């Protein structure tokens, strides 16, 4: 089987975000493998355990530093990497087309795993666009998955406990939820082995992407400002609680 997993190199959510020129962020902070993509890599690697003669290829569209994220995926058990090199951040419409073109050029996918969203762009859409370009079925927010022959049985979650169990024929695209699995922590031997695994690099400009029918154009980026009262209520627990209820009713008017 040939499994591709799309991964993204994103800022650590604990890092301080500094905005330059009203549109870019300072990238000298820690970047790492997007959390949902960890679940995607784990799902891909588990398929290998089920079926011998399975190759897992980690794919990313990113700047040079994104190689680190590919190495993380390789340390988790991906066999080789595919790096689409770009000098600038790209939006989801370009990203999906680039991933599709690179994967098509590389081989024939049986399953393509992605995370359900990237924590930096918060777009929630790349997996759907990727599937549309490749004309493959897609299910995202997947919380359970099993394979029987040439089809997957997946559960995806809606709101307030709503679930659907679907049968998905291969080839397909799957967007992993955090609940899908518990991603493994690579051991030191895994990390060392990962350094020797192959990563092939292709320039974004060398891929034939066609032209998306529209653009989501970034106009401005501002820090989100927090302006909370931070009123700490003093006194005994009873006194503090009574004051809280009074404030919620009379000052904040939320109850």
């Amino acid at each position, binding site marked *: 089987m040939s499994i591709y997993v799309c991964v993204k190199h994103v800022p650590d959510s604990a890092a301080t975000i500094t905005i330059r020129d009203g549109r870019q962020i300072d990238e000298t902070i820690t970047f790492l493998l997007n959390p949902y993509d960890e679940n995607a890599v784990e799902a891909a690697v588990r398929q290998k355990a089920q079926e011998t003669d399975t190759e897992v290829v980690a794919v990313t569209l990113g700047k040079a530093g994104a190689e680190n994220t590919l190495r993380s995926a390789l340390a988790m058990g991906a066999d080789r990497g595919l790096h689409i090199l770009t000098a600038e951040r790209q939006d989801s419409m370009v990203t999906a087309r680039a991933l599709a073109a690179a994967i098509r050029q590389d081989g024939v996918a049986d399953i393509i795993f992605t995370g359900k969203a990237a924590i930096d762009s918060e777009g*929630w859409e790349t997996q759907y666009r990727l599937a549309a370009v490749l004309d493959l079925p897609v299910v995202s927010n997947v919380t359970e998955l099993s394979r029987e022959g040439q089809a997957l049985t997946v559960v995806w979650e809606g*709101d*307030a406990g*709503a679930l659907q169990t679907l049968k998905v024929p291969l080839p397909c695209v799957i967007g992993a939820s955090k609940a899908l699995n518990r991603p493994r922590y690579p051991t030191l031997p895994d990390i060392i082995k990962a350094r020797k695994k192959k990563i092939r690099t292709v320039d974004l400009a060398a891929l034939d992407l066609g032209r998306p029918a529209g653009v989501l154009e*970034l106009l401005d980026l501002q820090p989100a400002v927090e302006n909370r009262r931070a009123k700490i209520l003093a006194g005994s627990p009873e006194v503090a*609680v009574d004051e809280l209820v009074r404030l919620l009713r009379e000052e904040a008017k939320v*109850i």
Partner: protein
Amino acid sequence: MTQKIAILIETKGARVKPAMLGVITAARAQDHVLYGLVADGAGENHRDTLARFGVEKTVNLWGGGAGQKPGEVAPDALARAVVQALDHFQIDIVFGLASTKGKDLLARVAALWDAPLALDCLSVDLDNDIITKTQYSGKTIATFRLSGARRVLGLRPKVFPAAAAPTSGEVLNWRSDVPAGPLEVLSVESGDPDDVALSEADIIIAGGRAMGNGENFQVLKACARALGGVVGASRVAVDSGWVPHTMQVGQTGTTVCPKLYIACGISGAVQHFAGMKTAEVIVAINQDPDAPLMQGCDYGIVGNLFEIVPLLTKALKAPSE
């Protein structure tokens, strides 16, 4: 030609979801005709509610009458049916609720259309096709313009206020004839119809590390009942197996926007905060006065949640003076 805007109307049980009314309000603009697309076949029942907020045309996607239960249609077939209706009615702009199901459907429509998509918007300027939304784990606000013949927008639940703008409404029965597949529905769980989705709740009380185990969440449940709210949890509580993943608030859980968010024994790590920072009022109850949420809240009580929360429940139930 008069501009048309379609709104994907989410229903729950027999009614239009309350959170939809803010979305409809945000989608209103001069000279635009609003089409509300309904997938439960009960357009006749929804028409008056929708018309009160400005929707002139309520469209039954599966024709009138009983129709199919929306939960039993595969998501790819639903998206194709929506696109077929949009193309038939010549509608190029789609609004929806950025609920979990809404985000899926809107992304599928945008992908089928190859059109720009803005999900989880915090503001919309329809005249200029400009929206704002968060990026970078909720730490920044990004302003985007959608350019293209077609645009798709999903609005964050509870952010947009609802305001009535009554118009006359009619029901149109559109018979979708998209073939089923390739996704096949094997089974469906609708969830409790009375359960409010975390992302749409007005009041949330959430527990974190200090909860200690799953049973202790009963303390929060009692308070939630007194408040008329729902219970949430931080990642620690979910990872420890105390509560299901569906209760998780935060970056890798659900983003919420309630009027009131009470965080009990939650330190307020960036990832959690990203999921609840747009709450109107934040209350923090924690033994640690230096917990990040103590600075990031509106009102805080330093104390043991197992002492404070039951007192809160009691005070809420007492008749107010």
